C-alpha cells in the first residue's frame, strides 16, 4: 500500500493542516501539559466553589437593583487568587500557567458564572492585544503594574477599547474599516499623540487601570493608519462615560471611554502600523495581523465561554430532572427527557470540541506556539526569578528586542497559518456560543416555571449567554470570517464582503 504514491491528495481541500490541528499539535506539546491542565482546572473548580458560587446570584441580583455597582469585592478576590497573572509567563513575572491551558480554565469559570469569567477573561483580552503589538518595553511596564497590583491587593486590570459608537463590526475587519464611521483620532504632536473620540461597550472599562486603545491617525484611511495606545486611568483628557445597562453579564461593566484632547506620550505608543518600516508587510497587513492575533486567541476564549454555559445549562436541567416528578414519575425517567438531556450533553461536547480544536490551531500557528511547544514550555517551567529579573527584564527595554520579536511574529507567520487560526477561532466562537444559547433555552423548556426564577440560576444563564453571540465580532461576522479564511480562499472568484 505504501508504495502507491498518493501524497498529492493531501494538499487538496480540505487541507490536512486545517482539519488535523489536533493530530499535528499533540507531538509539539510536552507530556507535562496534562498535569498542568489538571492542576489549573482543579484550581478553577476550587475558586468556583469558594468564591463564585457563594456570590454569583446575589451579585447579579444586586446589579439588577443598582446597575452602577462596581464588583470590586469579586475583582479583589480574583486578584488575590492570582487570576490576573495566572497565564502571564514566568519570564515576565506571572504565575506562568501555560496559555494552552487557559481555555479550559475559562470554561470551568464560565460554567459557574459568565460575568465573573468575563471579569477575568477581558483582562487577558487587553493583555493579548498588548502582547500582539510585541512592544516589549510597554508589556514589561504594564505587566509589572498588574503583578504589583497582585502583591498590594489593589487589582490592576487591562481593558481593550476598539468599538466605537459608529463602528462595531467595521473595526474588526480591514476590508470594512475604510468605509466605516470610525472617529477616534490620534493626531501626531510633539512627543506623542492627542486623542479625541470615544469608545463604547468596553468590558471592565470602569474597573481597569490600563486601556489598550485602538485609534487611527488618519480617519480617511484607517486600515493603513492604525495605532495602539496604552492609556492609564487618570490620564488628563481621558474619562469614563456611561456604564451600559445590560440584560446579562451584569457584574462586568460595559463602559464608555471618552477622550478629549487626551495627550498620550510616545512612550505609551504600543504600535503604529505605518511606522514599521522594517517589516515586509504593508500597514494594512500589519493591521489585519494585529486583529487576527488578538481574535484568534480571544474568539477561542469566547467559544470556551459558550461551552461553559452549555455545560451549566445542562447541569441545571439534569439536576432538575433528577429531583422533579412530572406526570407522576421522575422527569429523568421520561424517555423524551432523556433524549433532550442527551442532546444537551452533545451540544456541550460539540462546543467543547470546537474550541479545543481552535486551541490546537493557535498552538500551531500563533504566538501560543512559543510557550506551548516543548522548548518554550520547559523554559517557562525552569525560569528563575533571578534570570527573569537579571536577563529577561533588561532585554525587554531594548528596542532591538521588540524589533526582533516583531520580525519573528509579524513577518514570520505565513498567511496559511494566520488563516487557519483565524478560521478556527471564528468557528469555535460562533458554534460554541450558538450551542450555549441552545442549551440555555432547552434548560428553560425543561424546567418551566422553576427555570424562570432568578434564585434557581437557570434564567441568568440565558441572559448572560446572549452576549456571547455579539461580542468579539457578531456571529454573523465570524461566519464571514470563517468563509474568508478557510472556504473562500479556495475560489479565486470569491470576494470578501462582496456587496
Amino acid at each position, binding site marked *: 500500500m505504501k508504495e502507491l504514491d498518493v501524497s498529492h491528495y493531501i494538499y487538496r481541500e480540505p487541507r490536512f493542516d486545517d482539519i488535523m490541528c489536533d493530530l499535528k499539535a499533540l507531538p509539539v506539546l510536552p507530556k507535562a501539559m496534562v498535569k498542568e491542565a489538571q492542576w489549573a482546572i482543579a484550581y478553577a473548580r476550587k475558586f468556583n466553589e469558594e468564591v463564585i458560587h457563594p456570590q454569583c446570584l446575589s451579585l447579579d*441580583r444586586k446589579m*439588577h*437593583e443598582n446597575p452602577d455597582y462596581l464588583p470590586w469585592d469579586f475583582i479583589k478576590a480574583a486578584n488575590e487568587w492570582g487570576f490576573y497573572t495566572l497565564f502571564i509567563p514566568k519570564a515576565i513575572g506571572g504565575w506562568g500557567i501555560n496559555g494552552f491551558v487557559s481555555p479550559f480554565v475559562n470554561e470551568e469559570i464560565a460554567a459557574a458564572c459568565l460575568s465573573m469569567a468575563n471579569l477575568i477573561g477581558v483582562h487577558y483580552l487587553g493583555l493579548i492585544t498588548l502582547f500582539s503589538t510585541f512592544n516589549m518595553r510597554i508589556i514589561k511596564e504594564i505587566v509589572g503594574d498588574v503583578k504589583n497590583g497582585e502583591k498590594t491587593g489593589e487589582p490592576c486590570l487591562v481593558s481593550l477599547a476598539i*468599538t466605537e459608537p*459608529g*463602528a*462595531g*463590526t*467595521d473595526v474588526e475587519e480591514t476590508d*470594512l474599516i475604510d*468605509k*466605516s*464611521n470610525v472617529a477616534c483620532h490620534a493626531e501626531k504632536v510633539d512627543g506623542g499623540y492627542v486623542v479625541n473620540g470615544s469608545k*463604547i*461597550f468596553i468590558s471592565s472599562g470602569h474597573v481597569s487601570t490600563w486601556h489598550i486603545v485602538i485609534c487611527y491617525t488618519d480617519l480617511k484611511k484607517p486600515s493603513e493608519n492604525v495605532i495602539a495606545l496604552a492609556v492609564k486611568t487618570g490620564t488628563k483628557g481621558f474619562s469614563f462615560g456611561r456604564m*451600559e*445597562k*445590560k*440584560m*446579562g453579564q451584569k457584574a462586568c461593566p460595559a463602559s464608555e471611554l471618552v477622550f478629549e484632547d487626551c495627550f498620550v506620550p510616545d512612550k505609551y505608543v504600543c504600535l503604529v502600523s505605518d511606522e514599521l518600516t522594517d517589516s515586509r508587510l504593508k500597514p494594512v497587513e500589519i493591521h489585519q495581523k494585529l486583529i487576527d492575533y488578538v481574535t484568534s486567541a480571544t474568539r477561542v476564549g469566547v467559544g470556551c465561554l459558550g461551552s461553559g454555559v452549555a455545560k451549566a445549562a445542562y447541569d441545571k436541567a439534569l439536576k432538575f430532572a433528577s429531583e*422533579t*416528578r*412530572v*406526570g407522576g414519575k421522575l422527569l429523568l425517567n421520561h424517555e*423524551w*427527557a432523556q433524549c*433532550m438531556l442527551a442532546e444537551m450533553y452533545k451540544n456541550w461536547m460539540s462546543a467543547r470540541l470546537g474550541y479545543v480544536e481552535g486551541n490546537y490551531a493557535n498552538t500551531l500557528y500563533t504566538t501560543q506556539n512559543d510557550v506551548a511547544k516543548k522548548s518554550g514550555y520547559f523554559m517557562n517551567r525552569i525560569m528563575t526569578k533571578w534570570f527573569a529579573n537579571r536577563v529577561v527584564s533588561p532585554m525587554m527595554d531594548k528596542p532591538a528586542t521588540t524589533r526582533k520579536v516583531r520580525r519573528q511574529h509579524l513577518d514570520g507567520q505565513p498567511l496559511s497559518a494566520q488563516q487557519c487560526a483565524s478560521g478556527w477561532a471564528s468557528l469555535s466562537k460562533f458554534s460554541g456560543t450558538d450551542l450555549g*444559547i441552545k442549551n440555555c*433555552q432547552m434548560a*428553560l*423548556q*425543561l*424546567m*418551566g*416555571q*422553576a*427555570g*424562570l*426564577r*432568578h*434564585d434557581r440560576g437557570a*434564567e441568568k444563564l*440565558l*441572559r448572560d449567554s*446572549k*452576549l456571547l*453571540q*455579539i*461580542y468579539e465580532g*457578531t*456571529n*454573523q461576522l465570524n*461566519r*464571514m470570517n470563517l468563509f474568508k479564511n478557510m472556504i473562500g480562499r479556495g475560489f479565486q472568484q470569491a470576494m470578501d*464582503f462582496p*456587496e
Partner: protein
Amino acid sequence: MLATKEKEFKMLEKAAAEFARKELSPNREENDKYPFGPFWDDIVKKAFDLDFFHVLLPETLEGMGLGMQSFCILLENICEVDASLAGIIFTNSMAQEIILATGGEPVLKSMMDTATDVYGHLFAFPAFANPSEIEPTVTAVPADDGRYELSGPMEYLVLGNIAGNALIPAKIKGKTGYVFFTCDMASDGVEKSEPVLSLGLHACPAVDVRFFRAKADLIGDAGNGKAVFDAVSTRMQCAAAAMAAGIMKGSFKEAFDYSKERFQGGRQIIKWSEVQMILAEMAVQVKIAETVVEQAGRSIDEKQKGWEDGSQAAAIHVCQMACDHTCNGIQILGGVGYMKDYGQEKRFRDAQQIQSLLGLAPMKKIGYIHRKMQRI
C-alpha cells in the same frame, strides 16, 4: 354579522395599539425595573378602566363577552410593546375562565360586587404551572363551617401580591387528583414572599405563598381539577400564542427600523444580504404567527371541529418561534440590542417566559399527541 365582527376587531385593535403606544411605550424601561422600581399601578388601573380585563368576561358579569379572537387581538397589540401587562390580563382571565367553567359565575359575581378597587377584581393564579404535571403542594382540609382550610407552600403565584383573590389548585386530603379553591389573599394564614425576581414579564409580578390553614372555597366538584384545567388551558393556549406573536411583531419592527438607520461598512446594514436573510426569516415568522393565531382564535370562537388542535399547535409552534425570533431581534441590533434602553432584550426574555405559560413546553407537545392518540 361578519362586518360587525370585523368592526369590533378593528376597534379593539385600535384601542389596544393606541394604549400601548401612548401608555406603555414611553416608560417601558422604567416599568420593567419592578421589583426594584415602583409597580405600574396607574397603568393597570387605566387598562382596567378601558375594559381590557373584561374582554372574555360574559356581559352578565359586566364583561364585554367577546371571543378568543378579540382577546388575542388585545394581547397581541399590547405585547408588541410590553408583554408584562398582557401577562397580568392573561393570568386573571385564566383564573376567571376556570371559575366560569366550573359553574362558578355566582362566586365571581359576589367577589366583584364586594371589590373596592381594581385589585379586588383580580385573581392571582399559578399561570406558569400545569397542576397535572407537577403535583400541587397545597392541601385542603374540610373545615367545620363548610369551607376548607388550605395548608402548604405554593411557588410562583402570579399576581399573588397584588390581586385581592387567588385561585389555588390543591389536593383534598384523602382524595385523588386536585381541585381549585378561591381564597381571599388578605385572609389569615396567607403568607407572601417578596416578589420573585424572574427572567421576563417583570411587571407581571409573582410571589411564593405559604398557606397556614387559610380559609378557602371549593370551586367545582372535588377531583375534577384536571378536566377543568385541561379544557380551559387548551382554549387559553391560543392567547399565549397571541402574546408570543405580539412580541415577535414588536421585535421585527424594531429590528427592521434599526437596520435602516445603522450604517456599517459604508451602508445601511439592511443592505447587507446576510442581514436581509435574518430579517426575511423574522418577517416570515411574524406572518406565520399572525395567520396561525388568527385561524386558531377563529376556530375556537366558531367552535370548529378540531379547534383544540389549532389552539395547542399555535401555542407550541408560535411560542417556540418567538424564542428564536427575539434572539435574532437582538442580533440585528448588535451590542445595543443587549441593552435596556432598547426593547429587544426585554422581548427576548418575555418570549422565553411566555413559552412556559400553562406548563412545561415539551409536555405540551406530549399532551398534543396524547389527545390525538386517544382519538384512535
